[in-house]
């Protein structure tokens, strides 16, 4: 049995954690939350210089050609740091979409720039409240896209977007790649619950676009991209959950009430133990997800849904109980508890909410049973 990261991967973890402690402290997160800058450009540059954005991009496109285990390690640490970066949009979604469905030309155009961090990509699916399906998509198109996407994570700063559009063909959707720097694209920065990550409303007016993958197979492609991204997002959620637990623990140890540390009261101890339990389940499931991503296992859809449900549940629980452990101070603007609570919600709705993934999990298990 060798269900563990390698020594080199653990070394990468140490380096990543050390780097983020030095360069992405809670002060940096707060600056992103309170400031006008859409993201931390300086940090993005450093992260790209270290090769994080190029981790899984093949060497022929100027990437490092490393595995998803290395990317999992980085995602874990970025989640822990609540990093104010467009990393997930650009790496887990846009880069993955190009690797899986891009033509050679599309790859040559964008992958080297994504690898170097020079370009930022994103993924645009949602349009209105409620679950998005091929039937309720209003954005249409193939070689020319029209419609409005909201919210698009990092849509204000991205250079291109992978846009899910409605079509009468196939499964009802196309996956289109759209350069966002063109006259047919209007972008508007919007406010969201997690201002440490910037979001936009993007309106396409006959914008030039190219279909990725096969025409009319965009919905299946979206599901596949989300399955893969779900595992990487779950690593961020798990890293964030651990950070919230450590924050709660350190505060409880130092906070005295009725003459003793509140960490000695069972009500608090059990709360933190429950956080630890959920975090451990999420982390072990993330190991499973990383293995499935790394080996492109047949059970990837099961691993993805399992990992995502565990990640959503752990981060929501850890982030809300961290505030509770802090008492009144946890509810202030001044304290950092809010960062995890905000990020937990962003990450729980961005590529489909908990109930969607619970449903997908059972569907995947049913399909496995039939196979």
């Amino acid at each position, binding site marked *: 049995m060798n269900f563990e990261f390698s020594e080199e991967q653990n070394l990468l973890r140490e380096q990543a954690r050390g780097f983020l402690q030095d360069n992405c402290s809670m002060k940096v997160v707060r600056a992103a939350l309170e400031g006008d800058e859409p993201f931390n450009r300086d940090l993005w540059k450093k992260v790209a210089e270290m090769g994080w954005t190029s981790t899984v991009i093949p060497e022929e496109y100027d990437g490092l050609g490393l595995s998803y285990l290395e990317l999992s390690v980085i995602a874990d640490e970025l989640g822990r740091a609540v990093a104010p970066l467009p990393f997930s949009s650009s790496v887990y979604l846009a880069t993955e979409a190009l690797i899986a469905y891009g033509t050679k030309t599309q790859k040559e155009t964008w992958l080297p720039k994504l690898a170097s961090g020079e370009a930022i990509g994103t993924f645009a699916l949602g349009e209105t409240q409620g679950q998005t399906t091929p039937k309720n998509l209003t954005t249409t198109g193939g070689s020319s896209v029209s419609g409005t996407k909201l919210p698009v994570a990092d849509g204000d700063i991205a250079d291109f977007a992978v846009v899910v559009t409605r079509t009468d063909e196939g499964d009802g959707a196309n996956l289109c790649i759209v350069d966002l720097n063109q006259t047919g694209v209007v972008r508007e920065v919007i406010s969201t619950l997690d201002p440490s990550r910037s979001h936009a409303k993007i309106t396409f007016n006959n914008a030039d676009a190219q279909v990725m993958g096969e025409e009319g197979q965009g919905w299946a492609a979206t599901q596949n991209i989300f399955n893969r991204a779900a595992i990487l997002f779950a690593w961020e959620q798990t890293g964030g959950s651990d950070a919230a637990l450590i924050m709660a623990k350190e505060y409880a140890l130092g906070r005295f009430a009725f003459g003793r540390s509140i960490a000695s009261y069972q009500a608090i101890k*059990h709360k933190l133990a429950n956080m630890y339990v959920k975090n451990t389940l999420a982390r072990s499931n993330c190991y499973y997800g990383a293995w499935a991503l790394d080996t492109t296992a047949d059970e990837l859809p099961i691993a993805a*849904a399992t990992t995502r449900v565990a990640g959503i549940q752990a981060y929501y629980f850890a982030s809300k109980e961290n505030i509770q452990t802090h008492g009144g101070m946890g509810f202030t603007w001044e304290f950092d508890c809010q960062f995890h609570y905000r990020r937990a919600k962003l990450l729980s709705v961005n590529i489909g909410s908990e109930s969607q993934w619970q449903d997908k999990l059972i569907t995947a298990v049913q399909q496995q049973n039939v196979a």
Partner: protein
Amino acid sequence: MDFNDSAEEATFRIEAAAWLNANAPSEADLAGLTDMQKAKLWQKRKSDAGWACVRWPQEYGGRGANAIEQVILNQEEAKIAAPNVGVFSIGQGMAAPTLQTWATEEQKKRYLPKLASGEEIWCQLFSEPAGGSDLAALRTKAEKDGDDWIINGQKIWTSGAQYSDFGIIVLRTDPNLPKHQGLSYFFLDMKSPGIEIKPIKQMSGASGFNEVYFTDVRVSDAQRLGEVGQGWQVALTTLMNERASIGGGGGAAGFKTAMDLANRINIDDKPAIEDKHVRAQLANWYVQESGLKFTGYRSMTALSKGEIPGPENSIGKLVGAPKSQDLASFAMDLMEQAGIVLDPDGDEMANLFQGTYMSIPGLRIAGGTDEIMANIIAERVLGLPQDVRVDKGIPFTDVPTSN
């Protein structure tokens, strides 16, 4: 990252599987035997060939195998239809490690091989009516009389007392010292005069445990493990191994059985599995079981590398037992009114969920309640301080007790 054996592990697995397949008792071997006789036959056969208690040193009945080899053997044994040897688990899993740490060489040579071979069965006499989660509050006393001690009092929740040959026991040898300091640890012959064993009828109707009463029972001072007053330390050796012995998820009622039920029961004239609420519930249990499974794989990896597993595995019982309880309850709800109809010869699945529902409350308490397990995680894993103890440092006789 993979799930594969190392070369040595693969060799061991092949060797173990080959022996198990060649030597598992046939139906003819087992014809007409009681469950106990079947267990003893199989255990003796394994022991004679060196496949029992493989981690123990050879001179005590083992083969000096490492921890991952034990896991591999367990996995391979689970694949064959061999008799259940659970009756030996307390003796081998809890008494034996304590003997190995604290007994004399002569005692180890006398008792350990027969524990390994299943010829002698041991039980554990720790819990008392006044000492459960607060085990050190036990009151059964031992008073020195020449080279012997005389025991009076009562133990409770003793599994297998009625068929055990020996028992490990913690006793209060000095009630005037503070709680933990007045304890000493012994082993004794369960056939000693003055021992009376009464089965406990559980809420499920089954009787898996006993009350054990002691009236002037004599035990030799030579059967003391550790010094007088050192009983708590010796007991910790046993308890550390208890978590390894009990653990687990508790019963076969899990995601798969609940999913099977949801496939054949209808809600609104459609299979329950199509109901979104049912699917969400099932998904949550799948996620928990998956998390526990892969947590186990992480621990096995540590064992495989010769490391001591981290604290992750302490969550097994804390997650598994409540999960089984909720799952059984939910499954019976799916059956609607028929969920409560008992028919031992009827639907196997109904019996499984009903049986789980009625037995799981015990698993949430045995071997450390959910609350104690949470304390252990909080204190030993997260490093949080112990609760304030009002009985600390005062003579045991002055400690307030229940009525």
